[in-house]
């Protein structure tokens, strides 16, 4: 029997740029027990939205819950208020919301793929994927005004329009990006060292995914078919030819391939939306205060997002509740560490793509 050795994997670490803290107990380099500590970025956003911000200012505050899923949080809140006050937004605004949404998803998935290749030691591939990601960041900057925090959705529509000059700049960049992504897909499927490093590690079976309630790309890599864009009809994804991506293996390699395939599907949906934009206004005037309750389930890049809104006739909301996708996935992550060597910890953690600002909002 070997000696027990306690290793803290602290909140400041270079492999994982998120403030999460683990305490592992290892014996002969095999992990025997683990304890998780998060909540380092708590800001009290729900309490602030109930006491001092009016309901028209809340989309700008809620978008700063997370840097990578900023567009999804603001859009989900606006859809909740619109379904509560019975506002009908024009068709052009719905298509514009889909366009920015899918651009956000592309850049978030490419960031996760690059990060995982860097943790595997393949720095050449990290640089190549980051170079291809810059095409999408330029498109976002021209359309919305900023690279990450695009304050784009408000209650009743969107803030900026897609004019003819913007369309001339967007189209060649998207074609070039699609060509490069097909080359990347060939490399990830056939590379010898990456398959040796990632196949068969951190396996989640279908029963485990159903028992622990996994969401997002983590569940779709194990065969569990759950996707809010197919189940609900808030935005017109069916007209734009959207299909769900499913893999059956459930290991680190399968989660990576699910994200890469989702990027290709998103580019196809984007190109269809840009070519078939309907005419009309982009905003509708909003009067009055919200009264009643509403519940919305929407799809962020990491999984399912849930918003609950309650108003009682004043301009400040009575209750706002947010459930983020990384919060539901942490119990599964804890189960995967038992009886694995200590050297596999960065690969398993980064393949989940955790976003700790979301989970402690």
């Amino acid at each position, binding site marked *: 029997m070997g000696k027990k050795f306690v290793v803290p994997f602290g909140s400041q670490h270079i492999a994982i740029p998120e403030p999460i803290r683990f305490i592992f107990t290892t014996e002969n380099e095999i992990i025997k027990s683990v304890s998780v500590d998060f909540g380092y970025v708590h800001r*009290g956003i729900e309490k602030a939205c109930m006491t001092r911000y009016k309901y028209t200012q809340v989309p700008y505050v809620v978008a700063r819950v997370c840097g990578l899923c900023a567009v999804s949080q603001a859009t989900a809140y606006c859809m909740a208020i619109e379904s509560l006050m019975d506002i009908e937004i024009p068709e052009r605004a719905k298509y514009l919301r889909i366009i920015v949404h899918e651009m956000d998803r592309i850049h978030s998935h490419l960031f996760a793929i690059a990060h995982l290749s860097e943790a595997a030691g393949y720095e050449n591939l990290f640089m190549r994927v980051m170079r291809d990601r810059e095409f999408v960041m330029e498109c976002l900057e021209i359309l919305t005004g900023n690279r990450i925090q695009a304050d784009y959705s408000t209650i009743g529509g969107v803030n900026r329009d897609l004019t003819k000059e913007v369309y001339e700049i967007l189209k060649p960049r998207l074609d070039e990006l699609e060509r490069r992504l097909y080359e990347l897909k060939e490399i990830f499927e056939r590379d010898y060292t990456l398959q040796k490093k990632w196949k068969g590690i951190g396996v989640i079976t279908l029963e485990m995914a159903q028992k622990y309630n996994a969401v997002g790309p983590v569940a779709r890599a194990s065969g569990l078919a759950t996707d809010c864009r197919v189940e609900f009809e808030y935005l017109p994804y069916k007209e734009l030819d959207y299909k769900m991506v499913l893999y059956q293996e459930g290991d680190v390699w399968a989660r990576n391939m699910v994200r890469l395939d989702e990027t290709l599907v998103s580019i196809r949906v984007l190109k269809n939306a840009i070519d078939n934009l309907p005419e009309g206004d982009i905003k509708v005037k909003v009067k009055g205060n919200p009264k009643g309750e509403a519940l919305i389930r929407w799809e962020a890049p990491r999984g399912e997002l849930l918003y609950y809104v309650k108003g009682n006739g004043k301009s400040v909301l009575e209750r706002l509740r947010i459930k983020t996708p990384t919060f539901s996935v942490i119990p599964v992550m804890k189960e995967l560490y038992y009886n694995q060597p200590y050297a596999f910890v960065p690969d398993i953690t980064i393949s989940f793509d955790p976003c700790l600002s979301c989970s402690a909002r």
Partner: protein
Amino acid sequence: MLTKFLDFFGWARANSPWMVHYCSGCCSLEILALMGPRFDWERYGFMPVPSPRQADFIVITGLISRKVLPVLLMTYDQMPKPRYVFAIGSCAFDGGPYYDSTSVVTNVPEILPPDVFVAGCPPTPEAILEGLLEMKKIIREKREARAEREGTWKEILKQELEKNPLLSQQPFFVGG
């Protein structure tokens, strides 16, 4: 002749500044975009290091909550002198949009005063590069770091260590 020889160390230290990156907010994504090939920061000599004992300055990206504050001060305490502070984003200035929350520390510049501050929400990588070149000038002229003279971080760190002696936790053996 001796001053020219000693000046060589200042030149060497200014041309390859190594940094420790404490990420706890959305601004840290723009630091990771600086590592890519488009806004290359290695051509100026910057590099992220895993341990604070090898670094020249610390980068604070984003907001500081009350649970994070002892960890941040402990990391700054472990750096060897001369050590500088670089702050990004409007959350590090006065709390940003959360300035009246009960769990966000709003007077960070009074506790750990920064030497260079870049504004934005979040700022573009070109703006951060301008700030980093200012930092290079400060290291070259060998100015004293602002956190050594002002700031209340030493008393706060002493209080936190008395409350919780396991803060500087190292790996240790348990049982036999």
